[in-house]
């Protein structure tokens, strides 16, 4: 196919344009974006694809927007040697016109649908769609490497070039072979489908058959085992039978020998009896011999012991005497010691007496002094007790006196003074209160004679008042009012209260002092009362006496204190009285003598020297009591006697005491020696005595035993005398020897008959029989078990099972073998065919590869090589010795390779009927300047063989294309 021209009207943005292409060579259509370059390609596609009445959106899309016009395309092209002019208008004023000029010049025209159909038919007939698609590179597709294997014109071309015949009729065969292969094998060559399943079935059947076979093998081995067991069982049974016969024989033999053994037992028992009797007789003889021996031995022994007893008793007696002598000596020494102790005690007592006496004297003196002092203390205390006056009381008294004087004076001045005088016989009675007689009254005796008058109540009260008045009057020297006036008596009274002067039966005068008077009166009374109280309290008559007493009290106090100090010093060592009482009691009877002797005290002390000489005179020996035991020193004190000391000679007494003590110590030493001697003597005596007792006891025992032995011997002899004993023994010995001889004979018989072995043999034989029986039973059990198992195998039909399993195995095996044969055949065919196809493919690819490489070398130089895959697509490229997969190349290189491949394909098919233009829409966008030059040259050369159409907006990319026709499209 050659495209000569394309005319577009109202097509997208194109109003009206016609573009003419060179039938051979390269046409570069240059135009800016959107100017309609791609529309040219699109229009060419549409005119063949869609009829004029098409409602396709592709048609709607090409209508200029907003214009109600019909897009129209006219294409002029050569197709299979014909020249076509094909016009189509869609949407508005639809029309289709086709005019064909045959090679022979005939011209034909179609319109409408017929025109479309005819054009479509011609196109399909002459243009291989794959090749068309391959060589028409629309925008953005320039990188895609073509895979042209299915493009018939290419195949035809390469076939023609390679010289290999066309494989047209083989394609269905290839499919069939592959299909057959895949029935049995996976694409990777593994068994699959029925073939694989049958292999598995064979394995399973083999397993089943093996198991069934094994089961039968077990059955067979069980049969063999059972056969063997049967044989063994027969053998053992036979042996057992034989053996049992032997056992029976042994049993009979044993019965025979048992008789001999019985006899031997009887003789044996007799021999034992005889031997026992002999032993009895021998024992009797030995007993007798022992008795005789004992009697002899005990007699001798008894005599020895009696002698030893006499000796021991003598020794014991001597020892007892020694003890008595020692004890007597000890008693004497004890006595001496007692005497010495008495002396010591007397001396001690004397010393104590002397010391007590001295103490008593001192105490008595002290006591006398103490009595005196205490008498003084008592006297001073008495005085002080009597005196109740002190400095405060005296001061109080003086104040009270002053107050009385002051109050009286005030009263005297303030109250009426009444003077009453009895003039007649008539008694005049004076009663009242607050009355006091003035000093001037002359009634010194009147008070005493005044009787109690008036009513008891009034009289008593008046009397008291008058008494008080009188008393107070008496104390301060004033007179109180008399109750009655004697004849001619008068009373001058100061009335501070009320005065009633009555003459019974005659008159009664009442004088009352005014208010003032009563107050004054009470003041006086108070002062007097206070003074009186004080005086009473002090126990004095008046103030002067009080002062006197105060002085006396001071003196007594001083004395008392001094006496107390003295007493305290005297009693600091305790009450001398008690001590005196103790000493007095101790001295006791000497009290009086001492009292008397107090006067002789001095002369006693003077007599001390005389007494010492007297003491020395006593030291002369006159006692021989201790001759036997006395020590050599003993003589020093033999004549010692406690001297009578002179009274009050304390030092002398002390010395006497020391001497006495020394003598006592000596006596004690003597005593301990004597005691030791006694103890020794006693011990020796005890030992000798017990020795004597032992000797006696032993002697007595020996006597007893001798008596017993003699008695026993007598008794034995009474039963059997000594000669008879010996005879009996000899007889028993003979008897035993005879029986033993008989036993030997019987034993020989038994040995001869093997009697002792038979029992053992029988036992052994029985054991063997038992073992054989056990063996037989074991075999029988094993046989039964095996037979049982076989019975079960029979029930299970194991042989049938095995046969079935083998049958099954044979069947699946046969099937598998058949399948395997078929699979192998399929594989063989598949592999053989594939190998041949691959070889052919390699041959086909060679022209294309050569063409690509030749074109490529003009761009890349002589090291450029390519490899094609089964689909004739470029798979790898080598440059300068570096081989790379296509997808590993740079984008530019990929694009260049794609263009080169297309040009090569175009070149290959250009000569054939089915050639098509190569159309590049906007390619080479990825190539650099240097490459562009080379690619340009390539494109130019490609134009030598075919029609190349380049659509671009970058004309400079193609400026190196030689002999290219440039067509500029304007907007």
């Amino acid at each position, binding site marked *: 196919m050659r495209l000569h021209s394309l005319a577009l009207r109202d097509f997208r943005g194109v109003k009206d344009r016609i573009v003419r292409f060179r039938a051979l060579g390269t046409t570069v259509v240059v135009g800016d974006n959107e100017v309609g370059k791609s529309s040219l390609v699109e229009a060419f596609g549409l005119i063949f694809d869609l009829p004029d009445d098409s409602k396709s959106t592709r048609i709607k899309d090409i209508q200029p927007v907003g214009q109600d016009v019909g897009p129209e395309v006219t294409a002029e092209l050569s197709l299979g040697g014909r020249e076509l002019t094909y016009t189509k208008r869609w949407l508005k004023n639809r029309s289709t016109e086709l005019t064909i000029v045959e090679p022979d010049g005939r011209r034909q025209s179609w319109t409408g649908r017929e025109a479309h159909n005819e054009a479509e038919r011609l196109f399909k007939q002459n243009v291989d769609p794959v090749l068309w698609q391959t060589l028409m590179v629309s925008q953005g597709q320039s990188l895609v490497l073509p895979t042209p294997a299915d493009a018939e014109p290419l195949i035809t071309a390469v076939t023609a070039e390679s010289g290999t015949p066309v494989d047209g*009729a*083989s394609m269905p*065969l290839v499919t069939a072979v592959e299909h057959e292969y895949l029935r049995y094998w996976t694409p990777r060559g593994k068994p699959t489908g029925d073939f694989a399943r049958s292999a598995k079935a064979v394995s399973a059947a083999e397993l089943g058959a093996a198991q069934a076979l094994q089961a039968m093998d077990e059955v067979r081995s069980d049969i063999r085992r*059972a056969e063997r067991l049967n044989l063994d069982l027969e053998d053992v049974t036979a042996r057992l039978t034989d053996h049992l016969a032997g056992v029976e024989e042994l049993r009979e033999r044993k019965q025979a020998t048992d008789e001999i053994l019985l006899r031997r037992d009887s003789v044996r028992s007799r021999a034992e009896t005889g031997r026992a009797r002999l032993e009895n007789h021998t024992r009797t003889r030995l007993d007798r011999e022992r008795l005789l021996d004992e009697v002899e031995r005990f007699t001798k022994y008894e005599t020895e012991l009696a002698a030893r007893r006499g000796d021991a008793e003598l020794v014991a007696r001597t020892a007892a005497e020694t003890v008595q002598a020692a004890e007597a000596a000890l008693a004497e020494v004890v006595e001496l010691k007692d005497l010495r102790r008495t002396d010591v005690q007397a001396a001690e007592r004397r010393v104590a007496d002397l010391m007590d006496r001295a103490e008593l004297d001192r105490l008595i003196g002290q006591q006398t002094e103490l009595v005196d002092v205490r008498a003084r203390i008592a006297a001073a205390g008495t005085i002080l007790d009597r005196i109740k006056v002190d400095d405060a009381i005296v001061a109080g008294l003086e104040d009270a006196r002053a107050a009385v004087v002051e109050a009286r004076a005030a009263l005297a001045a303030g109250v009426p003074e009444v003077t009453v005088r009895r003039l007649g016989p008539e008694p005049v009675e004076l009663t009242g209160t607050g009355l006091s007689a003035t000093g001037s009254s002359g009634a010194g005796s009147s008070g005493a004679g005044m009787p109690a008058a008036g009513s008891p109540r009034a009289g008593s009260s008046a009397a008291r008042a008058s008494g008080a008045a009188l008393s107070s009057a008496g104390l301060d020297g004033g007179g109180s009012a008399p109750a009655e006036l004697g004849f001619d008596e008068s009373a001058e009274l100061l009335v501070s209260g009320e005065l009633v002067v009555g003459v019974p039966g005659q008159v009664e005068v009442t004088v009352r002092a005014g208010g003032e008077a009563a107050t004054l009166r009470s003041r006086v009374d108070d002062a007097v009362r206070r003074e009186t109280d004080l005086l009473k309290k002090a126990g004095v008559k008046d103030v002067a006496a009080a002062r006197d007493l105060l002085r006396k009290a001071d003196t007594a106090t001083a004395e008392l204190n001094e006496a107390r100090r003295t007493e305290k010093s005297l009693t600091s060592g305790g009450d001398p009285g008690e001590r005196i009482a103790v000493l007095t009691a101790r001295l006791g009877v000497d009290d009086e003598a001492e009292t008397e002797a107090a006067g002789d005290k001095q002369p006693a002390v003077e007599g001390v020297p005389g007494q010492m000489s007297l003491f020395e005179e006593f030291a002369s020996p006159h006692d021989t009591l201790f001759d036997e035991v006395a020590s050599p020193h003993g003589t020093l004190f033999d004549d010692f006697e406690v001297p009578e000391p002179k009274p009050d000679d304390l030092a002398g007494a002390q010395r006497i005491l020391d001497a006495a003590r020394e003598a006592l110590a000596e006596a004690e030493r003597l005593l301990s020696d004597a005691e030791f001697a006694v103890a020794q003597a006693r011990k020796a005596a005890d030992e000798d005595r017990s020795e004597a007792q032992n000797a006696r006891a032993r002697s007595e025992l020996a006597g007893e035993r001798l008596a017993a032995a003699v008695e026993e011997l007598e008794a034995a002899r009474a039963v059997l005398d000594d000669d008879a004993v010996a005879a009996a023994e000899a007889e028993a010995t003979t008897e035993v020897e005879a029986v033993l001889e008989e036993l030997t004979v019987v034993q020989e018989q038994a040995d001869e008959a093997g009697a002792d072995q038979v029992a053992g043999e029988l036992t052994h034989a029985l054991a063997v029989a038992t073992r054989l029986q056990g063996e037989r039973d074991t075999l029988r059990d094993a046989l039964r078990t095996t037979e049982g198992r076989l019975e079960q*195998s029979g029930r299970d039909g194991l042989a049938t099972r095995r046969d079935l399993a083998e049958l099954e195995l044979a069947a699946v095996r046969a099937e598998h073998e058949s399948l395997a044969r078929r699979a192998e*055949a399929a594989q063989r*065919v598949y592999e053989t065919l594939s190998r041949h196809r691959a070889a*052919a493919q390699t041959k086909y690819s060679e022209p294309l590869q050569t063409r690509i490489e030749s074109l490529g070398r003009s761009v890349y130089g002589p090291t450029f090589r390519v490899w094609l895959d089964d689909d004739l697509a470029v798979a790898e490229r080598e440059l300068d010795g570096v081989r790379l997969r296509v997808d590993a190349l740079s984008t530019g290189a990929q694009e260049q390779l794609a263009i080169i491949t297309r040009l090569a394909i175009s070149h290959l098919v250009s000569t054939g009927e089915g050639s098509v233009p190569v159309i590049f829409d906007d390619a080479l966008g990825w190539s650099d300047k240097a490459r562009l030059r080379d690619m340009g040259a390539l494109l130019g050369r490609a134009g030598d063989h075919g029609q190349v159409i380049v659509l671009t907006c970058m004309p400079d990319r193609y400026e190196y294309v030689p002999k290219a026709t440039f067509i500029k499209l304007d907007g």
Partner: protein
Amino acid sequence: MDSLTFLHSSDWQLGMMRRFLGPDGQARWGQARLDAVARIGAVAERTGAAFVVVTGDVFEHNQVERQTILRACEALKRIPVPVVLLPGNHDALEPGSLWTSSQWLAHAPGHVTVLTETTPFRILPGVEIVGAPWRSRRPLSDPAAPGYAGLEVDPAVDSAAGPATIRILLAHGQLTSLSGGMSEVPTIDQAAMEAAVTDGRLQYVGLGDRHSTTRVTDRIWFSGTQEVTSPEEDAPGNVLKVTIGDGIEVEPIRVGAWHMVDHRVELFDEESITALEDWFAELPDKERTYVRLAGDGSLSLPLLTRLDTIIDAQGEVFASVERWTKFWTVRPAPDAADLESLQLSGPARAAMEELRQALAGGDEGAGAALSLMHRLARDAG
């Protein structure tokens, strides 16, 4: 004396499997073997036989499945006269023997006697059966000898009146003369046995183990199996009717219904294939016939394909048709015409040519591949 008629059969081998028959054929064949037993019953009735003896291998194994035993018992019941069975090598009286199993003992019909001893069994007045039952699969000596070892020569044998007692020996085993010395177990001492017949101790010897009816002497016979078991057997499927009177008369009567056939063909052209087709067509009882084909020759690919089709189709008609692998050497012989007719070109043609040459070089696999490719190309074309 009156003549005695009885039937002699052997080698029933009930429970036997034949793998070449396929499951369906196996079932039918197994049933046929039982049917043949039943037919023996019919023969006994028809011929007035006094009893039936079976000389060994009644069962295929001691461990056959229960079904086989029960069905055998049912078949035995169809025999209206007493039956005497002898244990053979397949069903020896070994431990675990079928004959002592509860399965057999529980179901065995009352008129059936199994010879388990060598003591004479008086089946009728004046008729004794002695047997030599197999006690093991591997006897150590002449398996028949124990059956007649204890017999004494009847002094009356030479008298014209004949023997007072008719003695029939039942034995199982191979005769050296017939086994060709290939037997694994001791064979029967034929001379001794014939001597026992000659001196009148035995009036008839019924043998088993050989599946083809075989006359050894007038009085010594193999009855053969009641139904064929292998194509090698030349006279199977009979029961012997034995009549002992003044002399002896033995008559084979067919009771089998199956055929097992070996067929040998030479295949080299279309005609030979047609001849084979005709041969198949003429065979009777096809559904009860097993054919084992031995073949030699070479065929063009289309003829080979046709042969396959024929054998395949006959396999459906017959009980079984089998290529006898050992003797099947039919080769494809593709000629140039075959290939040209396929109009192959390019790689396909090259591939086929390669296979053809490999086949010519003796590559068996190439033959199958070539046939396949031929078929595929033909179908694809």
